[in-house]
Each structure stands twice: as structure tokens, then as C-alpha cells.
């Protein structure tokens, strides 16, 4: 295969040969190459197939705007799809392949889509949703369901590996006075000026080298600039993209740390996601050259003019032999000179008729000519050209490359992220950045400056602007006027040749043609935002960097308006794609969110606990013996609690110390029931409402001393309750002398429950008298010592309905406490029990938890009206009977039995009347369990009107998700020991 590499050109290191593979064949390139330059050097023209039509596509650019050369890099779990070959640095052993083609990009079976173009026109996707007109119009769901998988397969890009990402990613933060985005002449000038004025500067460059578009100049050497920047103490970040600007001068950066290395050190992250907080931002992001729309303007061999200059002078690749350049502006002539000096046969078609330009006269300039059709399919054979006034065939030029320059678009994307609409500049046929009150200054070509000297001047002016805004100086400055070419640009977006149905591409990556834009207009999509969504113009991951302006100009023409009247679309972050891995950083796997464990976590595991997540907490779920299943285990555990004794880790409950002279008053205001008469040494169950009268949480508060309480909350609401108490004390009741302190992690708690629990505890405490029925009656609290002189708090509180105690020790003593209680419980054939058994026990008793108290339930709904004091006012008391909350058909807490006691049911089952099984029914089941005591399945839930209304009626449980249905009986929620005799024993 012939190489396109030529001697004496380029900044690549020809001493360092790199081998890489393309579609499983091996090739060679040099250090300093991108994948694109190496492919071009190896004469590989077709690198992809287009999105919808599967047309062969080549390399259009040399940078981030690339919309053709999207390839897949790597293999297996490191397969990275949709990588721009133009920005992927070559490394030894790089594996790359084409995508969206079967079997390969050179011969793609789906290329037939090219001939089915009318089925894939604008809005095709949306029309499939609607059905095929006229027969199925408006009822298209079925046909969409049928075609969806074919369409999705045909219209797509590379696919992800589907495997866990083996690489690591990092989040990092930094601060600076000034961040400069872009290291072209403007950005470098700004950074140097700022550093000389003693600002702390970060300079960001997405390329591997600093220099910006100067890297396309054959005599450019960046080493001196680099030294100067470094000596001034500027932090230079290459391979780093500023992908977004955010509030308060925050810049999001993506640093590609190892994407250019063949065997990276495993201790280094692949990418870093930076959040930079600056005081001022200078954007010198450059400008992007546009193409021109005409028939077959996507055939491999079409490229922007500037890209060809990059390939020649940076990579030593001459991209064509017989090159036609089509333009409407002055920027191409230097390139034309150089390409012809390098040995290419060059012709320039300039749409303008009247202009003067200096060249080395080694090539022909056809003034007043435009291209209108490329002949060829997998490569360019020839170009049909026409006079620019009226499009008629005048000549066909044999060529192997067509370079396009339809003008330049300043990269205003980052400013657009801050909600600033750019303004149209007629003289330069481009959008220019508008002013922004925030501390952001645009410099260089991104403010429409085409000359290097103007760019440098604008960089210095930009820093002066920054210094003024930061209050460091008060210096006058001015920016050079936009423009800088000798002859004015002549707008040229599309060359229309009426003869045939054309494939003139506006957006290469999404296969949007000029015909699509016209079709969208005919179908009524006249707002640019609608047009964009209907045609998907500019909605690929390049966000239409090359083609958006062409689309706008077509729309303007169709609407008989000027481009600025049509508007521009808003660019949103990210400027270039950011991988999900970088966004998640280290927050993956077990680090996805914090993990909370109780102080006896390891003790629980050592004693056979299977764990379950409750919020962030790991709690014992069940303790299986030998071959027990979850169900075997929890039934045994719950039975043991009812028969003898069980012990359960309850440390995850929220615990709050409430201290101060107004503590009682405080509790009286936040709980719905009265706390004013609670004696020292007693605990009380309490319910907290929200301001709007709905239940917030339930728990207990123990009066330890006159002015000191120990509050427990549910596990899930612990943080919320703590913040709520702080809010009330700091914002509403600032006169109360109360202090609240979270002591959740200071105390380890265990529940000892069952008829033998007192005997067990008797053996555990120093003074066996403290737990007698007299000394510690139901809801009694005592501060005492466990054997071994361990201080503890014990309250006689029951969640299971059995005689039960909650014992708390300082967290350091957790294991000692567990050993002690467990040794004694074993003597009574006791067990360890987990959350599943705890759930079974509380459902049997009709005790509510988060499954019932879901933020929609009032205290009356939960059947706890007795807990709502009528003798005092409290948070929520004014609102708990408002409006709909006082309706008498509200859903009330009840118990459920299956009518056929052999049947089971699930939480989430909808309760319905027998002959009216539909919609939301008349209630729902929130918790279910097998009841070892009753010997069948039972449930808790809600039904409209409650037990009184449905006591003797057969209802139906509908469970459409599981395709189940069963007959139900409504019973009292207190399914076991309704009088609570066991608790008081």
C-alpha cells in the first residue's frame, strides 16, 4: 500500500515507529500521530459508515469537531465506542475498528439504506410512533414495537462493551485567579500577561500540545512558549477539555490522563474530572471551519481546508494528489500555496468573483466557481463545478480530494453554557460572542479575530479586562475589531442543483441533509428548536459544530428571514463527550455511597448473620442455621422470640440527646401526645407530625433526668428528625433553652425480647433487682451496669409485643454486651434474630413502620388517634384535620388475612371490591409476612373506611404485576395479643 506520508514535513517523531491495528489489520505510524493522521498516512479513506444511510465516511477534520471518523478503540472490557479518530493519539498496540457496519466499513450490507433514503427522511422516527399513514395513522404503537429493534440496530453508532469498566477515574478540585481555556496565540498572551501581573493562572488545552491552530504551521515550535509559561509559574493542563462553564466562575474539566498510553500504570486514573473554581475565565477556544452543502459532499476524501493543512504540517501527510479547494473566503490560500509546494496539484474554486489575493501562483484560481456534485461513492473520482450565479454544469474536474471552507464559526459554546446568546455578524458571516456580566472574557478567534496579531492583542486586552473586573487595576483597553481578511467573505452555505434528489449533507454525524431541513419546514417545523429536534440536526455528540450554521441559513432562506431572526440553538455542556466513568469518579461499586455499619457488625457476621441494606445501614437480615432458607430462618427466629427469647441489633435507630430546662416543653410541642407528665425513669412512645399534619416519624423518648431526654427515631428518618429539631430550635422557637445532640453513633443498642428476656437480663446486670417488674415496669427506664462494670441504659420497650427490653451501651462495649447477653440467651434456647423476623413480629402486632408511614398518612389513618392530644397544641395539630384529611372515606390501617388460609400475597397488592377490580381499588397492602403464631400469611395495609366498614365483607386482592389474585378478609391490625398482656407480663 502506498503511503501518503511525505518527507521533510510534520512534527512527528519519525524515529519512534508505533504499530496499531485497524479492523484487525496491522499498520504503522509515528509518535505524535493521531489515529486519523496514521490512517490517512496509510491511505485508508473509509473509516466509518454513516448513522442512517450507512454511506461510507472518511475523515472530515483534524479536531474535536469531527463528525465522520468516529471509531471504536480497544477491545473487551476496554472497548470505547464513538471515539473521534482525529483526537485519539496513536500509541503502540492501539486497536481500532470502524463501527455501524457489517461485516466492515468497506463492505456494509446495510448500505442498502442509502437507496431507501425516503424512508429515513426527517421525522421518520417520530412517524413510526404514529403508524404508517393512512391506514394506521394515530395508532402506531404496534408497528413501532415491531420495527423498533431493527431501526435501533440500523441507526446507531458503536456499542459499549456491556462489561464493568476496569479503569479508575478521579474527581479533583482546584482554585485559581484566572483560568484560560485554549493555548492559541490569544490564550497564551492572556496567560502570560496575567502571570506577569501576579495572578495565579491555569492554562487548559484539549490537545496534547500547546499552540492551538499554530500547530498547523510548518515553522511553528512551541518549546519556547512552553518554557516561558512554565517559568512564569502557570499551571499548564494539556489533554484537558473545558467541557462546561457553570455558576460563579466554575469550570468543568476533563483531563485524559492515560488515553494516549499503551500500558498505563494501574495506579494512575484513566481520566480526571476537575472542578475548577476561578475568579475569572478567559476563553480563547478558537474557531471551527465550516463545510459547504452540495450533492455527495460526504464522499471519503472531503475534508476542511484547515484540516488538510494540519495533516501536512503537523503530521507530514499529504491528504490528496489532485486537490480541489472550494471556498468563499481568504483563509484557504496559504494552505493552497503549501499543498502545491508539497507536490499536490491544486485548484481553488472561489465563489467570489471580485477579489485580489497574493499567492505563489503555483495553482489555478477559478473565480466565481462553486462545486455542486461529487462523482464517486467510496472515493472521489471527479467534481462537477458550476459558475456561482446560476448552477449549471460547466465542467467536471478529475480529483481525489475536495477541501471545503464555507467560513469559520467562533467557538462560542462555553459562553453559551452561561445562557448568553451570540449575535450574528454579517461582515464575517458568523455568530460572535455577546458581552456577559459575569467574569468571562472571550479572546482570539472565538471572538471572530482571524489574524494572529489581533489574537495576541485580544489576549492582553482580555487579561486587562479581568484585572479591572477583579479590582486589581483600572486600565483602559480595547479589543481589535472582528475580521481581518483582506477581502470580505461571501456567504455560501449550500449549492443547490435542482436536477435530482440530492444528498447534500448539513450534519454528517446524524445524516441530516438539506432536503430534510426543507421537509421539516414543509411539515410546519419553523422554530429552530423544533427543526433541530425533528431532523436531529446538531443533536449528535458533536452538537453540530460544523453544520449548524448551514442548517440555520437554510431555515432562514425558507422563512424569508435573516439568520439572526431565525435564531441560534443553545449549546449545552459538555463541549465534547464526557465518559460516564469520569462523571462517577470513585463513587462506584462499594464506594457508590457511604456504608454504615453498627459497632457489632462483625459480631453479627461472625454469628452467622446474612446482612441487608436499610438506608445506608447494613443490618442483620436473618441468621440461618445449616441449610435454612430465609423463610425457614425468620419463621424459626420469630417463633423463638414468642416462645423463649431473641436478641436483635437495633443500633441503627436514630438517637438524640435532648438537654436543657425547656426540654419537656420542647417535646410537648413536637410530639402529638403529651410529655408534660412523663416521670423521670419512664419512656413514652411518641408520634411527630409535619407542619401540614401528616405523620413524620415515630419513636420513643426516655426521661433520664428532670431536664434530660434520650430520643430514639426510626432508622430511615434519623437524619431528617435531627435537622428538623435543629431547625425548630434555631429558627422558630429561639426562646427555648434546649440543646439537641445526635448520639446515634455513640450508643450501641440491642433488643432482648420474649417471655424469658427478663431472666436473661437478670443474669447480665450487676444488680439483678433493677429489672424486676416492680423496679422496671412497662416503659420503665434505668441507668445501670452490665456485669463487668459496663454502664448501660435499659428501657422496657416492646416492638414485638412480647416482654422486651432495649439495652444501650457505649459503642466501644458493643461486642462485650453482645457476648454477655448471647451467652445467657443460649441458656434459654434463645436465638439471634434479624430484620425479617422483626418485621414478622411487628406485623402480627399491627405496629407501623416506614412501609405504612409513607408521608401520606395521618395519625388517624394509622389508627393512632389516641396518640393525638386534644389538650394541647403541637406541630401539625392545626392542620391534621384540614380539607381532605378529614374525609371519612380515607384509607385506614387494617390487617388482612387471605380468605383461603393456604394462600399467600405480596406487599403492593391492590385491595378491591369483589365486582369492581380496577384502578386504585379501595386500598392497598403495605407489609406481609408469614405468621408463625397464626400459621398462615397475614398483611398490614390500608382500606377506605377501615375495619368497621369491611369487617364481614369478602374483598379481592389484585396483584397485576405478579399476575395474581386472591380473596381477602379485613381484620383488626392487632392480630396477636390485642390487649398487650404479654408486654405487661
Amino acid at each position, binding site marked *: 500500500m502506498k503511503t501518503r506520508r511525505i518527507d521533510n514535513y510534520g512534527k512527528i517523531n519519525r524515529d519512534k515507529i508505533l504499530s496499531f491495528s485497524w479492523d484487525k489489520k496491522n499498520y504503522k505510524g509515528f509518535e505524535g500521530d493521531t489515529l486519523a493522521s496514521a490512517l490517512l498516512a496509510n491511505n485508508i479513506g473509509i473509516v466509518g459508515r454513516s448513522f442512517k444511510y450507512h454511506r461510507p465516511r472518511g475523515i472530515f477534520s483534524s479536531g474535536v469537531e469531527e463528525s465522520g471518523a468516529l471509531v471504536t478503540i480497544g477491545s473487551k472490557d476496554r472497548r470505547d465506542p464513538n471515539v473521534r479518530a482525529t483526537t485519539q493519539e496513536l500509541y503502540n498496540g492501539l486497536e481500532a475498528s470502524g463501527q455501524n457496519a457489517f461485516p466492515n466499513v468497506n463492505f456494509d450490507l446495510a448500505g442498502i439504506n442509502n437507496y431507501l433514503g425516503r424512508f429515513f427522511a426527517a421525522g421518520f422516527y417520530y412517524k413510526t410512533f404514529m403508524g404508517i399513514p393512512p391506514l394506521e395513522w394515530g395508532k402506531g404503537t404496534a408497528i413501532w414495537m415491531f420495527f423498533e429493534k431493527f431501526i435501533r440496530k440500523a441507526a446507531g453508532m458503536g456499542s459499549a462493551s456491556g462489561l464493568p469498566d476496569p479503569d479508575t477515574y478521579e474527581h479533583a478540585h482546584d482554585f485559581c485567579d484566572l483560568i484560560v481555556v485554549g493555548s492559541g496565540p490569544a490564550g497564551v498572551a492572556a496567560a502570560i500577561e496575567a502571570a506577569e501581573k501576579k495572578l495565579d493562572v491555569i492554562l487548559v488545552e484539549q490537545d496534547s500540545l500547546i499552540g492551538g491552530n499554530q500547530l498547523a504551521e510548518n515553522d511553528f515550535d512551541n518549546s519556547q512558549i512552553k518554557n516561558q509559561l512554565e517559568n512564569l509559574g502557570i499551571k499548564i493542563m494539556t489533554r484537558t477539555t473545558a467541557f462546561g462553564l457553570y455558576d460563579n466562575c466554575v469550570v468543568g474539566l476533563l483531563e485524559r490522563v492515560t488515553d494516549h498510553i499503551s500500558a498505563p500504570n494501574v495506579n494512575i486514573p484513566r481520566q480526571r474530572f476537575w472542578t475548577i473554581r476561578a475568579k475569572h475565565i478567559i476563553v480563547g477556544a478558537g474557531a471551527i471551519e465550516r463545510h459547504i452543502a452540495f450533492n455527495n459532499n460526504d464522499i471519503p476524501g472531503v475534508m476542511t481546508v484547515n484540516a488538510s493543512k494540519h495533516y501536512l504540517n503537523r503530521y507530514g501527510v499529504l491528504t490528496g494528489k489532485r486537490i480541489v479547494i472550494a471556498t468563499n473566503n481568504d483563509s484557504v490560500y496559504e494552505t493552497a500555496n503549501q499543498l502545491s509546494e508539497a507536490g499536490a496539484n491544486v485548484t481553488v474554486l472561489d465563489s467570489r468573483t471580485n477579489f485580489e489575493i497574493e499567492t505563489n501562483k503555483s495553482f489555478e484560481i477559478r473565480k466565481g466557481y462553486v462545486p455542486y456534485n461529487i462523482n464517486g461513492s467510496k472515493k472521489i473520482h471527479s467534481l462537477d463545478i458550476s459558475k456561482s450565479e446560476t448552477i449549471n454544469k460547466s465542467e467536471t474536474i478529475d480529483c481525489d480530494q475536495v477541501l471545503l471552507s464555507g467560513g469559520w464559526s467562533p467557538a462560542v459554546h462555553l459562553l453559551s453554557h452561561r445562557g448568553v446568546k451570540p449575535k450574528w455578524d454579517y461582515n464575517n458571516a458568523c455568530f460572535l460572542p455577546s458581552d456577559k456580566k459575569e467574569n468571562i472574557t472571550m479572546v482570539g478567534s472565538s471572538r471572530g479575530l482571524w489574524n494572529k496579531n489581533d489574537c495576541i492583542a485580544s489576549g492582553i486586552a482580555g487579561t486587562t479586562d479581568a484585572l479591572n473586573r477583579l479590582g486589581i487595576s483600572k486600565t483602559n483597553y480595547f479589543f481589535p475589531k472582528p475580521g481581518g481578511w483582506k477581502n470580505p467573505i461571501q456567504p455560501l452555505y449550500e449549492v443547490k442543483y435542482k436536477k435530482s434528489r440530492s444528498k447534500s449533507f448539513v450534519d454528517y454525524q446524524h445524516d441530516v441533509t438539506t432536503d430534510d431541513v426543507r421537509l421539516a419546514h414543509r411539515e410546519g417545523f419553523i422554530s429552530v428548536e423544533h427543526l433541530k429536534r425533528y431532523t436531529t440536526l446538531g443533536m449528535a455528540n458533536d452538537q453540530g459544530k460544523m453544520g449548524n450554521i448551514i442548517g440555520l441559513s437554510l431555515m432562514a432562506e425558507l422563512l424569508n428571514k435573516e439568520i439572526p431572526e431565525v435564531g441560534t440553538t443553545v449549546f449545552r455542556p459538555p463541549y465534547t463527550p464526557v465518559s460516564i466513568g469520569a462523571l462517577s469518579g470513585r463513587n462506584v461499586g462499594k464506594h457508590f455511597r457511604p456504608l454504615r455499619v453498627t459497632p457489632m457488625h462483625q459480631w453479627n457476621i461472625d454469628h452467622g448473620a446474612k446482612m441487608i441494606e436499610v438506608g445506608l445501614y447494613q443490618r442483620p437480615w436473618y441468621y440461618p442455621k445449616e441449610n435454612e432458607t430465609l423463610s425457614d430462618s425468620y419463621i424459626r427466629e420469630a417463633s423463638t422470640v414468642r416462645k423463649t427469647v431473641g436478641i436483635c441489633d437495633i443500633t441503627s435507630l436514630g438517637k438524640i440527646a435532648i438537654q436543657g430546662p425547656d426540654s419537656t416543653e420542647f417535646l410537648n410541642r413536637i410530639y402529638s401526645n403529651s410529655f408534660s407528665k412523663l416521670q423521670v425513669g419512664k419512656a413514652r412512645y411518641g408520634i411527630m407530625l409535619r*407542619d*401540614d399534619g401528616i405523620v413524620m416519624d415515630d419513636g420513643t423518648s426516655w426521661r433520664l433526668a428532670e431536664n434530660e431526654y434520650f430520643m430514639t427515631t426510626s432508622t430511615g428518618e434519623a437524619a431528617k428528625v435531627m435537622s428538623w429539631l435543629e431547625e425548630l430550635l*434555631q*429558627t422558630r422557637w429561639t426562646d427555648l433553652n434546649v440543646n439537641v445532640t445526635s448520639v446515634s453513633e455513640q450508643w450501641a443498642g440491642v433488643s432482648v425480647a420474649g417471655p424469658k428476656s427478663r431472666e436473661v437480663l437478670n443474669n447480665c446486670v450487676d444488680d439483678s433487682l433493677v429489672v424486676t417488674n416492680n423496679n422496671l415496669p412497662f416503659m420503665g427506664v434505668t441507668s445501670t451496669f452490665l456485669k463487668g462494670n459496663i454502664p448501660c441504659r435499659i428501657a422496657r420497650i416492646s416492638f414485638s409485643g412480647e416482654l422486651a427490653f432495649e439495652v444501650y451501651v457505649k459503642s466501644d462495649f458493643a461486642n462485650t454486651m453482645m457476648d454477655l447477653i448471647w451467652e445467657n440467651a443460649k441458656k434459654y434456647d434463645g436465638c439471634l434474630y434479624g430484620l425479617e423476623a422483626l418485621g414478622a413480629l411487628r406485623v402480627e402486632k399491627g405496629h407501623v413502620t416506614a412501609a405504612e408511614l409513607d408521608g401520606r398518612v395521618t395519625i388517624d389513618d394509622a389508627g393512632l388517634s389516641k396518640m393525638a392530644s386534644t389538650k394541647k397544641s403541637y406541630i401539625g395539630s392545626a*392542620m391534621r384535620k384540614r380539607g381532605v384529611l378529614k374525609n371519612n372515606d380515607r384509607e385506614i390501617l387494617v390487617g388482612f388475612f387471605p380468605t383461603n388460609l393456604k394462600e399467600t400475597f405480596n406487599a403492593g397488592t391492590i385491595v378491591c371490591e369483589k365486582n369492581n377490580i380496577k384502578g386504585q381499588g379501595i386500598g392497598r397492602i403495605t407489609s406481609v409476612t408469614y405468621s408463625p403464631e397464626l400459621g398462615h400469611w397475614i398483611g398490614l395495609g390500608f382500606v377506605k373506611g377501615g375495619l368497621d366498614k369491611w369487617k364481614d365483607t369478602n374483598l379481592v386482592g389484585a396483584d397485576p404485576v405478579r399476575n395474581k389474585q386472591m380473596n381477602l378478609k379485613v381484620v383488626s391490625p392487632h392480630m396477636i395479643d390485642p390487649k398487650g398482656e404479654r408486654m405487661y407480663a
Partner: protein
Amino acid sequence: MIRINCPYCGERDHSEFSYGGDATINYPSLDASEKEWTEAIFFRKNIKGFQFETWHHSNGCRMWLVVERSTVTHEIKSVKPCHPDLQKVVENNK
């Protein structure tokens, strides 16, 4: 991204804080009518510009703060403790 200058901890990222709500509400007494409570809980102004709002330094000093913030630009003009006595202390220590 917002940065809040906590009077106790200094300037911190907003991710350390939790948003509360309108700081200008005068909550009625607990025995006030349903109507007064309805006004206080459900009716909010939708301010374009600076508003006073509460933020909780939940991953910091746990203090509730009144932040004067622009809903348009996120610019923050002032940050004070909610508790009036603490406001005075902070003021005196300046």
C-alpha cells in the same frame, strides 16, 4: 455552583449544605387557626431576584443560616445565623 460563606466555618461548597426554604415566613403560634397555618405553609412568593432563604450547614457546623441569594444569578449578598442571639454574637465579633 454556589459557595456559601458560613459565619462559623468560612466559605464552603453548597454540597455541604441542605436547602431549607423561605426565611421570611413568620410561623403562627401552635394554637393558631388552620387558615393561618395554611397561609404559612403553602403560599410562597416566586421571587425573581434576591430572596432570603434558609440553608442548613448539615455537613458542617449544623447551623441554620439565612442566605440572601439571587434566584437569577445565584449571587449571594449576605449570610447570617438564623438565631437572632447568634446573629448578634456574629455581628459583634466582626
